[in-house]
């Protein structure tokens, strides 16, 4: 009897607590980092909503640790490969009897058929795969590929999403109708299926078409341009829908009304008053979307439709590791664990950003 009453009170308290954000407000004052003496408010620097959000994010331990890990992965993958290729002495190949330096055998595509499936050593820090390629070098290349696909997709996602979303929300009418229909279609059509179809049907053509492009097209990555475009095509309606919703709200705000009354053109209102206010929504949605994109690219490469050997990608490493899963589980575990860590960190960061920019959504 008593326990039930207590429970009831607890829920009732929960109901009262939920909508307000009192703890959040107290925390905010701490966040500004100022001692806040009474009557000395003029000295306190004005904090913009953005600064407040960032302060909130900085206090989110899980998100900050995630940022640290992500930055570490990205920096290592971008900076370390050239250094790694200068570490280690020359080696006499068992196949060609030639002297091979680290600039070759620490390369992600160099195959040493006499050094297959080796465990971690001073020569191969993370071991080699079943073709005798250095797993650390392949891993770093894979992370770079994930990173660039994510950036590529987000660029198109944000550009298209904001353009169409703002137009649909601000003007309504035909664009709005078309966007709604198109979003329905893309939500019903499994995005992965679309990527598989397009990558499968046009993949070989994309290989020949994009391969001559320097840097991007080389190393079997040509098909990723196509894959990235299709992923962007599949995800932007979601971004547009969120932007549209936010625009509808902003449109009714008084500052927009004030701007309109004073004769500001629609174009100027959109550029100066609507789009800057979309920042928090867009950053949250796109961060959460990055996790999906990275998983999508890895999955497509795993199915053999993305990065082509001898290029490297986390998904490709997983599918190659499958052949030796019973004898050398290390080869498949490394990309799996790294991919998991990256995806978890991006998700945690996305969650942290959402909580920081919109504290009410926390529950």
């Amino acid at each position, binding site marked *: 009897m008593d326990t*039930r009453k207590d*429970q*009831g009170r607890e*829920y*009732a308290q*929960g*109901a009262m607590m*939920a909508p307000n954000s009192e703890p959040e407000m107290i925390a905010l004052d701490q966040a500004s980092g100022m001692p806040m003496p009474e009557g000395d408010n003029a000295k306190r620097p004005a904090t913009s909503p953005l600064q407040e959000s960032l302060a909130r994010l900085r206090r989110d331990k899980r998100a900050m640790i995630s940022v640290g890990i992500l930055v570490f992965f990205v920096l290592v993958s971008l900076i370390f490969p050239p250094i790694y290729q200068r570490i280690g002495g020359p080696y006499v190949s068992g196949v060609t009897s030639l002297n091979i330096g680290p600039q070759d055998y620490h390369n992600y595509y160099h195959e040493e058929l006499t050094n297959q499936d080796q465990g971690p050593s001073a020569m191969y820090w993370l071991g080699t795969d079943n073709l005798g390629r250095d797993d650390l070098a392949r891993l770093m290349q894979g992370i770079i590929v994930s990173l660039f696909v994510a950036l590529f997709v987000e660029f198109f996602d944000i550009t298209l999403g904001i353009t169409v979303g703002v137009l649909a929300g601000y003007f309504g009418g035909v664009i709005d109708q078309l966007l709604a*229909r198109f979003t*329905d*279609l893309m*939500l*019903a*059509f*499994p*995005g*992965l*299926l*679309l990527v*598989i*179809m*397009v*990558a*499968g*049907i*046009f993949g*070989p*053509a994309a290989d020949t078409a994009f391969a001559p492009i320097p840097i991007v097209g080389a190393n079997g990555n040509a098909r990723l341009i196509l894959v990235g475009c299709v992923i962007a095509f599949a995800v932007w309606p979601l971004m547009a829908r969120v932007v549209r919703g936010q625009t509808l709200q902003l449109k009714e705000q008084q500052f927009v009304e004030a701007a309109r009354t004073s004769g500001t053109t629609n174009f100027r209102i959109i550029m100066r008053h609507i789009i800057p206010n979309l920042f928090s929504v867009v950053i949250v949605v796109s961060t959460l979307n990055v*996790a999906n994109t990275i*998983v999508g690219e*890895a*999955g497509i490469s*795993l*199915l*053999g*439709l993305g990065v082509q050997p001898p290029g490297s990608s986390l*998904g490709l490493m*997983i599918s190659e*590791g*499958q052949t030796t*899963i*019973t004898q050398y*589980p290390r080869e*498949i*575990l490394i990309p*799996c664990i790294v*991919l*998991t860590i990256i*995806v*978890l960190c991006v*998700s945690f960061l996305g*969650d942290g950003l959402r909580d920081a920019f919109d504290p009410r959504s926390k*529950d």
Partner: protein
Amino acid sequence: MVQFLVKRLIGLLFVVLGVTFITFILGYLAPGDPLTLLLGQHYSKAAHAALAHAYGLDLPWYEQYWNFLKHLSTFNFGLSYEYKNRAVWDIISTGLPKTMELGLWALVLTFLIGIPLGVFSALKANTWLDTTNMTAMLVLYAIPVFVLAVFAQLFIVWLDSVTGGAYGIQWPVAGWGNAWQYSWSDIQYKLAPIIVLAVAGVAYFARLTRTTMLEVLRQDYVRTARAKGMRERVVIYKHALRNALIPLITVFGISVGGLVGGSFFIETIFNIPGIAAITVQSVFTRDYPVIQATSVLLAIAVVLANLLADILYTIVDPRIKIE
């Protein structure tokens, strides 16, 4: 309600048209002439024309699309390019039961495990049990399904090496037994893929159920029920849970979409000859009619799930009539 359903049906019809059009146009625009594959290196122009006529490839695109739609309505997907003179339906129909079995069991697991976990978390809200449970669900939801599949395979390999085949435990790492049969060896094949496919859905439903359940438990009528002195069990399972489940219906369609996406990886990694695996193989052999057929089937499965969710919602929640 009828008005609402008709409106939704028209919307879904548009979606089906869009889906079929996308699949058709991709196959239509596909580079290369599939017929040269069939004819070999040396062929006469007449033979090429005859074959093009047989496949209906000599018609303009809108007529081809119309034929495509007409054939779809009778489940006639035409002939395969890869296996000459073999109907696409023949190829797909071997894989369809396996994919359906995999998906349906994963869906059942999603509900049977996800919802109780969510209710449990809501009842223990803000205790360490809740926090641990929800963190685990967040992690499981974020981990890609193919990584989970690999972990499951590694676990099976480890289990086999530890038990050494004793007690009849020599679990297969890949493969699928007989469709819709459940002997001991069939179950050994099916357990791991089904569980792995269900994990993301379980995690999603657990988190969602917790949210909706907490919301319902705050309602006045729950307090009234408690104040009347009802047993806690009745309050939770009869008053709260029923209403907490209503919002879950709307995400039913989304979870089916997730299962369709996941089945590509599960079938590839566990080597299950379902239609998702057939699709991936057909992509490599450039067997467009097969790809079109499986894509349309899978997309329509998602569309139907959405429709089912709408119908269920109108039945369960009468307020929808007002809209």
